[in-house]
Structures are given as C-alpha cells and as structure tokens.
C-alpha cells in the first residue's frame, strides 16, 4: 500500500478491471501528451525520521520569526500576546478537527461559542448584529461593499486612499462580475480629504469606505466624514481594528452603518498571513442583507436556553442566486479563538492591551522623532502604528535591522510606490521598554 493513498495493489486492480483498463497509465491517456509528466518525479530517496527532523530543524533555525526577532511589523497583522489558554482550548480535538457543523442544532456548544463571539463583536462595534465571521478582513470589506450595493441599488463605491491597498484589491475582485465601480477618495496628510468629500455628489454612491486607524496608523475623523456625507442615503463602511475599539468610540456611535475588520489581533497567530478572521457587524436595518451565518438565542420545547441558526433565508441553500452571499460557511475555529481570547482578557484586559499598545507606540514615535535624520509623519492621532521617514531607503534599513534582531516594520513603498524612505512601524503591548530603547539606539546608528 502507498504511504498516503489508502488502497492496496489488489484494490487498484479491481478498480481498473471495473473500468476495463489494465494499468493505471491507461487511465491517464485522456490527459494530452504535451502536458503529461512521464517517468518518476525527481525526488530524493527517502530519509529516516531522525534525519528528516534534523534537516527541518536546521532549515527552521535559519528563518526569522517573531520569537527570534523583536517585531514592529503591522500593516494589518499584529504581534499581540496570545495567552496560553487560547491555544490550549482551541487545540482540543472537538474544536480543532471540526469543520462547519452540518447538523448545526446538535452542536449546541459550537453554536453557543459563535453566539458569544457575535455578542462580543457587537459590544466592541456598538452594532446590532454580527455574523459568525468571514474569511478575513479583506473579504469582509468586499462583502460589506456588496451589501451596500444590494441595499442602495447603486454601483459606485468611494474607497479612501488610506485604506489598506490589499483590502481594496480583494474588494475590487469581488465586485468585478457585479459591475461595482470603485473610486478613490484622496488623502491629504494621511487622512481623508474632508473638503473633497463634502463637495461630492453622492446621490449614486452606494458606500463610502474608511479605515480607522487607517493603513498609515492615523485615526480618521469618522463623525466628520459621516457629517460630510449628508443625507445622501450612502452607507458608511468602517474598517476597524477590534483591539482599538476597547479604547476608542465605537463605529456605531460615530455613525457607521457597517463595521468590518481583521480579527487576527484577537488571539490568532500571525503565521504567514492566515488563516485569519473577518468580522462584520451591522445596524439592524441590514439584518436581512448581511452575509454569512448568524447564530441566535432561543428556548427549546422545554423552555431551556438554546441556540439556533437564524435568518437562514438569506443563505445560498435556500435563496439560491438571490442569496446575500455565496458564503454559507464561516471561519469557525478562528472565531472561537477570538471568543476565547476576548473572554480570557475580559473588558479590562482588552482595554489594557489597547492602552499599553498606544502608550508604547507613542513613546517610540516621540523618541524616533528626536533622532537626527528621522521624522514621524502625519498628525499625532494614531493608535499603535505610525509612519517614520528614514534618512535611508526603508528597505535598506529593514535589512540592516534584521541583521541585529529587529523586524523593523513594513516598507510603505511596497504599497504606495514613490515613498522609498517611509517605514510603517507598529507597536504592541508585547514590546518592553528595553526592546524599544534598543531599537531607538539601533536607529541612532543609521544615517
């Protein structure tokens, strides 16, 4: 029997006989000759487990991670501390091996976890309804835009230039077949240009999309943006960092209709960009237009508290092509992770994470601003991330920092060509005073 294919030579012979074929090769004759690989794959001979392990460990030692280096990486993914209990509980096999429950109501535990997750997302965003999660922040934005298009029957979306460009790319990809037009709302000094927005005719605009803190870390003036939008009937979509909401006014309070964002900060490892968690919360008016699964609380036939999937008629299996989304699934394990993380930290803990991140980021920004040749751009209204103007190209600085144990940040150039010396620096509660001071001392050696 093959190591990874669970059938024997005898099984294979029987299956081939059933098909009237003699060999496995005959089965492949339908694949055109030109694109068919023949012969043996050029793989080395097998090695023992011991040899394999030591090779892999050696490879892994040559890599760089947030454990080997002090990380200031951000731009959508942040190095927050993950309490032991989060990994311990989510790694339980009941959770870890389960995909979406198809006999949902039997899985009361899973449904309750999703319900708690939704409730906490609603508390953070101030919104009325949260779904049970989407794939990641970018796809959550894409779905929010489609919701706005469905609701308003308009096809233009104004998206701030200060929104993470990767999110915009995903939203545009989703919108292609649906004739959604994305237009840019320009920025002045790393913030939305309010004057430009006020002067615009929004009567055929489905939504305005704003990220706060935005890609550059700066907070946008959401209530002023809402005001500038007037009575246009245009929806306001905000992309929020859920950790920041422990400290800042909620998007609902500031006038947003839909709040979406990346939930990686809520207990998920950065990994290599995923799997992450998209959250989406809306005002009650959009209850029947929100995509994804929603869990509700009810009572069973004996009056006991129970959980069920609600507003199911929005979904694909019932509504077919008129469903609110093609997504009938959710990012269950990551939503559970977020749920456990938020429950473990509690209201105070979450606020502490937000406060410490802010204080440390501002300390670092202040200190960097005093180093000759360096500048901290934009205004001081930022949460845990800011742009540093360096005396040398950011990419060169990142390389030199890597050699001495720092992941210095993200080069803005990679997202906004034309700004080679700008470095996006993020600070979380994990950074110690001594790490920050060591980084400052390193920067002082750069000129």
């Amino acid at each position, binding site marked *: 029997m093959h190591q990874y294919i669970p059938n024997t030579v005898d099984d294979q012979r029987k299956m081939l006989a059933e098909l009237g074929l003699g060999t496995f090769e005959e089965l492949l004759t339908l694949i055109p000759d030109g694109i068919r690989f023949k012969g043996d794959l050029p793989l080395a001979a097998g090695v023992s487990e011991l040899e394999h392990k030591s090779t892999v460990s050696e490879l892994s030692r040559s890599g760089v991670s947030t454990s080997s280096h002090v990380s200031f990486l951000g731009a959508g993914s942040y190095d927050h501390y993950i309490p032991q209990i989060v990994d311990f509980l989510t790694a339980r096999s009941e959770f870890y091996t389960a995909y979406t429950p198809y006999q949902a109501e039997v899985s009361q535990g899973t449904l309750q976890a999703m319900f708690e997750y939704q409730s906490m997302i609603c508390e953070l965003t101030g919104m009325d309804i949260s779904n049970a999660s989407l794939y990641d922040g970018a796809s959550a934005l894409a779905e929010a835009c489609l919701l706005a298009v469905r609701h308003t029957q308009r096809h233009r979306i104004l998206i701030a230039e200060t929104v993470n460009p990767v999110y915009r790319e995903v939203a545009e990809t989703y919108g292609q077949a649906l004739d959604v037009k994305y237009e840019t709302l320009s920025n002045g000094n790393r913030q939305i240009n309010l004057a430009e927005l006020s002067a615009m005719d929004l009567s055929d605009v489905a939504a305005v999309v704003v990220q706060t803190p935005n890609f550059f870390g700066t907070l946008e003036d959401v209530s002023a943006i809402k005001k500038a939008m007037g009575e246009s009937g245009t929806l306001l979509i905000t992309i929020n960092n859920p950790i920041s909401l422990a400290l800042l006014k909620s998007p609902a309070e500031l006038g947003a209709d839909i709040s979406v964002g990346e939930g990686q900060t809520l207990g998920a490892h950065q990994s290599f960009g995923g799997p992450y968690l998209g959250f989406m919360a809306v005002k009650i008016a959009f209850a*029947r237009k929100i995509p994804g699964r929603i869990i509700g609380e009810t009572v069973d036939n004996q009056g006991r508290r129970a959980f069920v999937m609600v507003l*199911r008629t929005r979904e694909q299996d*019932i509504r077919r092509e008129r469903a609110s989304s093609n997504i009938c699934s959710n990012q269950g394990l990551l939503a559970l992770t977020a749920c456990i993380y938020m429950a473990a930290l509690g209201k105070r803990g979450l606020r502490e994470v937000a406060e410490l991140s802010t204080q440390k980021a501002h300390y670092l920004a202040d200190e960097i601003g005093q180093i000759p040749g360096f500048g901290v751009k934009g205004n001081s209204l930022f949460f845990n991330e800011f742009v540093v103007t360096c005396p040398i190209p950011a990419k060169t600085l990142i390389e030199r920092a890597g050699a001495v144990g720092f992941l210095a940040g993200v080069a803005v150039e990679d997202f906004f060509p034309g700004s080679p010396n700008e470095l996006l620096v993020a600070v979380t509660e994990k950074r110690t005073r001594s790490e920050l001071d060591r980084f400052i001392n390193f920067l002082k050696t750069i000129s």
Partner: protein
Amino acid sequence: MNVPENLKYTEEHEWIKVDQNIATVGVTDYAQGELGDVVFVEMPTLGKSFKKGDVVASIEAVKTVAEVYLPVSGKVVELNDALNDAPESINEDAFGNGWMFKIEMSDPSELDSLMTAERYKDLIE
C-alpha cells in the same frame, strides 16, 4: 379553498385587483398556506417602475422564501406598510389586510393574459 371571483390570478400565485388603472397585488390564500408562517415581507421601492414578470418583492417564511413577480407592468405607487409590523396578515387575510402593494399600470392590456378565478381554481386543485 378561498378564491374570490372578482380578482385576477397568476401562475405564481399572485392575485390582482383592478380599480381604474391602479392594480392592488397580493399573494393567494393557497400560496400563504404553502409557505407557512410569514415572518417578513421585503417590499419593492416606492415610485420605481417595473416590467411584468420582474421580481419585485419577497415573502419570508420560517424555512423558505418566495419571490413575488409583478403581474402587470407599471409604477409602484403604494406599499402596505402595516406588513412591516404584522407580516402574519398575509397568513390571516391574504386577500384583504395581506395586500402588498399598488401598481399604476402602464399597459392594462396585460390583464388579459392573467387567469380568472375559475382557471386559478383548476390550477391549485
């Protein structure tokens, strides 16, 4: 089965009542019985014009949802807002309080293609 004589019907189980060039539209008693408890009604946009056969509204029951097709072309001139708070009116009084919206007809000759009460009775029996 209740099928009033003075109305016109569609194969998709809508009824239509004509008064001059205004047509009142709802779904039939048979349709509501098939759907079960109605929990929500999504209405067309007031003032918007549609063509015969367009999907203009939907009726959401506990486990399913039914689209409502426009029986005749025209402009939506009135909505039964009472259904927002009492969607169950469709179950309780499909031909009365359960009416959904009114259409100002742009081509009344389209009425000829609709079914009489008698033919509709044949359809559902």
